[in-house]
């Protein structure tokens, strides 16, 4: 049986009105008393009624992405211990993140930890953007060359040795860009066909981890049936399921952005989905590569 005094104490606890020492004592008592814990739940229901009086408001759209980025940053930060040393430009932001992690470690997952980490990563992102803007100009030039090469391959109806050479050249140039700017995470992937009736189909993906955007070009891809769409997927270690990068028209290629933040793109795949696409792959995979 719980008396009025305890009910009063529980009410003040629910509203955060108990002084620290009394709060600790109350929590210890609650741990040992299921009836008291139940009373607290009952009072929380009453307190939450006040929350329902607040008019709902739509948060800024960018906030959702900020929250997702914070979660992704948490994942990335946990992986810093296995990232190899890649030069001074690369290790500085990781060192910042590591310092923050060490500092925060003593505070047992303090609520400010993720906030500070996010701030540090936002500063890093700002600094990188300056360099990436320059890289983007060079990459656009490469993109033009890639388009021209693929257009020639389309006119020839097959992926010939010349195209392969061109792709290798582009791949090498992207690698050079990466070497010149270690913070720019550009990945080039060639996706091979696994369609028995169309083994000549091929796709090339240029994926920029920093901007979370990419470019897709396809060759020898048959048009999708009227009720179907081709859909690009990114297979990333962050998620159990492939992440959608959107549907596209194989005659045009596409600029794409995944629906969720990606910390590392392991593989790319294209599937044939119902019109408008799916939230997870349901149709046959037609091309895959890394």
């Amino acid at each position, binding site marked *: 049986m719980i008396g*009025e005094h305890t009910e*009063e104490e529980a*009410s*003040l606890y629910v*509203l*955060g*009105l108990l002084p620290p020492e009394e709060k600790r004592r109350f929590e210890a008592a609650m741990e040992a008393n299921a009836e008291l*814990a*139940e009373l607290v*739940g*009952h*009072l*929380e*229901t*009453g*307190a*939450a*009624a*006040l*929350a*329902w*009086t*607040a*008019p*709902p*408001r*739509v*948060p*800024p759209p960018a*906030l*959702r992405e*900020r*929250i997702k980025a*914070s*979660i992704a940053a*948490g994942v990335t930060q946990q992986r810093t211990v296995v990232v190899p040393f890649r030069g001074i430009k690369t290790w500085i932001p990781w060192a910042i993140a590591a310092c923050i992690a060490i500092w925060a470690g003593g505070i047992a*997952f303090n*609520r400010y930890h*993720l*906030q500070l980490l*996010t701030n540090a990563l936002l500063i890093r992102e700002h600094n990188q953007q300056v360099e990436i803007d320059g890289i983007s100009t060079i990459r656009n030039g490469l993109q033009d060359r890639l388009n021209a090469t693929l257009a020639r391959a389309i006119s020839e109806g097959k992926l010939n040795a010349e195209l392969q050479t061109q792709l290798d050249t582009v791949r090498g140039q992207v690698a050079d860009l990466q070497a010149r700017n270690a913070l720019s995470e550009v990945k080039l992937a060639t996706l091979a066909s*696994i369609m028995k009736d169309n083994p000549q189909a091929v796709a090339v993906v240029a994926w920029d981890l920093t901007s979370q955007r990419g470019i897709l070009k396809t060759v020898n891809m048959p048009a999708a049936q009227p009720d179907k769409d081709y859909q690009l997927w990114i*297979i990333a270690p962050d*998620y*159990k*399921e*492939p992440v959608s990068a959107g549907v596209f028209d194989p005659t045009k290629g596409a600029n794409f952005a995944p629906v969720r933040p990606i910390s590392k793109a*392991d*593989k790319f*795949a294209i*599937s044939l989905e119902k019109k408008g696409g799916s*939230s*997870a*792959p*349901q*149709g*046959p*995979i*037609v091309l*895959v590569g890394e």
Partner: protein
Amino acid sequence: MGNVFALSDGYTPLLYSLIHAPATPSKLRMSETVPIEDASEAALLHRVAKGDSLAFDEVYRRWSPMLYGLVCKILDDPKEAEDALQEGFLHIWNKAGSYDAQRSSPTTWAYMIFRNKAIDRLRARERRGRGMERIAVEEPFQAAPMADPEDGAESNERRQVVKQALESIPPDQREAVSLAFFTGLTQTEIAERLGAPLGTVKARIRRGLMKLGETLKGKL
């Protein structure tokens, strides 16, 4: 749109092998066969606790307007409200496993998390010397349309239930509880603001919360 791989397609196992080698479709969790839009709030929290980002997206879609509205009302500062919302959702992502369905409903659990995050910020602002610039308690119920019409009916129904519950308690209890919930004032400060003895204020808060909890049990 369901988060389900088609099991009949010949190419699907290949994709599985790319992701979870040597996983097979038989390892799919049965819970994932429920379309995420139809999942209960408790089921979504369960999935978030397992790291399901799709479930987290759905939780954000359903709850962010009401939770953002709450932290805006407490903090009266858009920037701080955004920070509080971010902090609260990170808490949900990391601590969804601590939700206890025996103790409260998912929305009550979430509301109390975000309320406490916002009050912590309000008190920190006070410590920084800016003061609690907004401590006037508004009328306890303000109708406002939900941002997403899909969720409007259910939420408006809950708001109506809450409105009736709040109207069922005496005004002095409602005032004391509202002041305590939204402003972050201490017991003594609440008593001073209401011009009532501390013991009386504590009693009003207790009676008000007990009555509200009793009226709303199982309804939120």
